[in-house]
């Protein structure tokens, strides 16, 4: 079901033709996709807590998050119940509104088949969207952009909110990193700017990325980041908050944004990760409050927006001796958007009992992350080429979208 697209007000005349190759498929632009990668292997068992499992509390006597009905704990120390079996970490309570509006879905025990438990290998395979290293070197988002012609000439078709473009974006169209929209200018007075621009335009005459950078500079100059007002809840004062806020700004400015890739790092919590306070709870709060603000800010745009969170793998089901968790396997994904079959924890729960854990004591994977992303591609991005985006993989539709 394709919706009619608003006519974009694009200053196309300054833009160079962008597609030097011919994408196999043509379709109107689908949703704006926001992909949030939680780097370092997020401890999802303390984010979406299986409070209905006794084994969880045996495995995590210190780190475990109390049951929603645990009368020995204060309310703010207990999980926030979602469905009688799973509950959110109390620092994620800000996401309850999105959950109750049925625009937030959770896919638990989700992940990749790779069992190296290596951050770097797992991230690489996941960002390239492949099962083993012999697959294509480009990234899954890059291949999505390269296979689908959406008739969108914007240099802001895909952006990376950070210092450098993510691996997942590679191989499609040139992608610019946007750490800060406010800093994305050359400085100087009008005359100096004109001189710099002319010289750069000249030396970059044959360079697509350079031309894109110039056009982005022109486009962003018209925005006014210092005075951007988000509707109500404030974004967290963090790099992640800024990345989401800038994404919202670009969406509202209708500059042709199709994909925004955002990293939130620091999840490799081997040591004193904290249960209710500390490193991990702070990260959870940054994530949840950021997403909640984004959701509230873009209420009117939710019908054309899909946000996905992912992480390279999950952490060991049992806590280690230093009040942290070692590398595990099964992870969790969240999908936020107006067309999500939300307010539900999707996926088959494999359980945390001895016979149900795998390897050294890890949550099993029952939903491949590529199933979720394939459904995003097919149902929300109008891209039928899932076999090219995820080569040698036959996705199973998990009905995460309505």
């Amino acid at each position: 079901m394709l919706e009619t697209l608003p006519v974009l007000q694009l200053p196309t005349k300054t833009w160079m033709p962008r597609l030097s190759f011919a994408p196999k498929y043509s379709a109107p632009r689908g949703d704006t996709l926001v992909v949030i990668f939680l780097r370092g292997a997020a401890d999802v068992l303390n984010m979406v807590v299986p409070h209905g499992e006794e084994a969880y509390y045996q495995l995590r006597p210190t780190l475990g998050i109390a049951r929603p009905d645990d009368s020995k704990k204060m309310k703010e120390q207990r999980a926030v119940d979602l469905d009688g079996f799973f509950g959110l970490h109390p620092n994620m309570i800000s996401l309850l509104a999105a959950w109750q509006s049925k625009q937030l879905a959770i896919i638990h025990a989700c992940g990749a088949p790779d069992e190296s438990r290596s951050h770097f290998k797992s991230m690489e395979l996941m960002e390239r969207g492949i099962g083993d290293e012999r697959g294509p070197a480009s990234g899954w988002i890059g291949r999505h952009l390269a296979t689908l012609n959406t008739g969108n000439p914007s240099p802001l078709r895909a952006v990376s909110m950070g210092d450098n473009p993510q691996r997942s974006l590679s191989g499609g169209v040139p992608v610019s990193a946007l750490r800060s929209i406010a800093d994305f200018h050359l400085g100087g007075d009008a005359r100096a700017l004109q001189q710099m621009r002319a010289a750069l335009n000249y030396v970059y005459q044959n360079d697509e990325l350079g031309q894109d950078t110039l056009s982005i500079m022109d486009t962003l100059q018209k925005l006014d980041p210092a005075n951007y007002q988000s509707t109500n809840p404030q974004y967290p004062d963090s790099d992640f908050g800024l990345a989401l806020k800038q994404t919202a700004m670009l969406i509202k400015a209708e500059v042709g944004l199709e994909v925004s890739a955002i990293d939130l790092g620091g999840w490799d919590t081997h040591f004193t990760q904290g249960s209710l306070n500390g490193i991990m709870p702070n990260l959870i709060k940054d994530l949840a409050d950021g997403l909640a603000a984004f959701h509230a800010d873009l209420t009117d745009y939710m019908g054309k927006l899909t946000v996905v969170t992912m992480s390279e793998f999950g952490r060991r089901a049992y806590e280690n001796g230093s009040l942290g968790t070692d590398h595990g396997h099964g992870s969790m994904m969240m999908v936020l958007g107006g067309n999500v079959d939300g307010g539900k924890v999707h996926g088959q729960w494999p359980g945390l009992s001895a016979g149900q854990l795998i390897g050294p004591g890890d949550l099993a994977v029952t939903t491949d992350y590529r199933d979720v992303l394939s459904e995003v591609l097919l149902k929300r991005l109008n891209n039928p080429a899932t076999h090219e985006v995820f080569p040698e993989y036959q996705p199973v539709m998990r009905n995460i979208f309505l």
Partner: protein
Amino acid sequence: MSLTRRDFLKLATFFSSAAALNACAPALRGFANKTPLNLLSAVEFTALNRITFGAKMEERARFAEIGLQAYIEEQLAFESINDLTLGLQLSNFSTLNMSANEIEAITNELFDGYNRRRPIHELRQATFLRQLYSQRQLYEVMVDFWSDHFNIFIEKEPIFYLKTVDDREVIRKHALGNFRDLLWASAHSPAMLTYLDNQANVKGAPNENYARELMELHTLGVNGGYTQNDVMQLARCLTGWSVKKHFWLGEFVFKPKQHADGVKNVLGLAIQESGQHEAEQVIEHLALHPSTAKFICAKLARRFIADNPPQEIIEKAAQAFLATKGDIKSVLRVILFDGLAFAQPKYKRPLNFVLSALRALNAEANGATLFKPLLRMGQLYFNWTTPDGYPDASEAWQGNLMPRWQFAFELIRNEIPKTTCDLNALLDVSPTGSLQSNADTLASLLLGAPLDRLFLNRMLDTIHSTEAAPEETLQIIAASLIASPAFQWR
């Protein structure tokens, strides 16, 4: 995305051919009474840019005088290269030579005038000044390489008072020494053990973090033939490897009471109970493992030769690694002597970009004022959070041009505090020194060869059309060359 020579020379049409270069030589007379600018072939220029942080004029002269092989040998014998001037510049940074205990003491809030940022700041600034001014360029390039290989994020608590010692006693001490000694020192380094949580790896409650990265990132590589069980067993060997918290705080300590009992099996070796010696046996085994040789040599080849270096060079270097039991210089000789001829363009990492501009134009800088631009470009010293170190592959760095452009213009206009770039001193600005000849000189310094005449003339027309004054024009040319696609590659 593979990059061919052709991609590199996107500006190829702007460059003169090698033959035409000689014809252009008279245009370089602008250097009269300055150090003559030696023109190197494209291959030589690339080689020099791989073994330095960007070729300085005098380095080009020396290279042209003695040739590649002798130049590399001279650089490998780094201890005999006089670096006194740099030594004087660094003498103000007193934390560089302190023990962890001393650094902690002066950054402790009990100390009058304490400043917790001081050791971090001094180490960053010293690293920058060494890369900019040291005559021992290949040595500094290797220090940079090992700082990535044994990456430590300096902002993780409480590494701010430990990293300085790691930098001095692990990385700098062994950068051109023996890999086994380097690995041994790193494994006993309090900064590394803290960074990868091994002080929390204790009997009955193992923490796998360091054990895993020791095999995955420091030695064997992820496909080097270890299993999850090896990780868990090595973690048991490493229980009790810790850092002193009192009396000589910040020193390595083995705590027998925290060490796991029993025999351990790592990589097929039955490790008998022997305390600290258990992990040390494994470290010895890992240091000279064939997978390690291959993994290290492949990384070096990627750094010095190409993102996809020839397999034969890696094999040959790995053989040298094993035959010499990890002698880094012997490995480098293979990589450089056999490999540089196969060099493919590499996208400059931010440090290379900034330093090569400063070095080519003989600019002066104190470093501290460049930390912010480097951060925006994505590569401030010791600021990469994960243990894999800053990426090396070209592709990882493409897509963030704006901060590089900003730097180019700010540098040339002398808008960066404590950083001076004196074009007038560099060029002939007398009435006879034409804009063209100055532009040729700038292009030769920065890109290795003058610009194609037609390309330059059109560039001048473009700049003239913006009504730039002559002095502005020269600045715009210099800045545009630094900002240009060609200068992003080395």
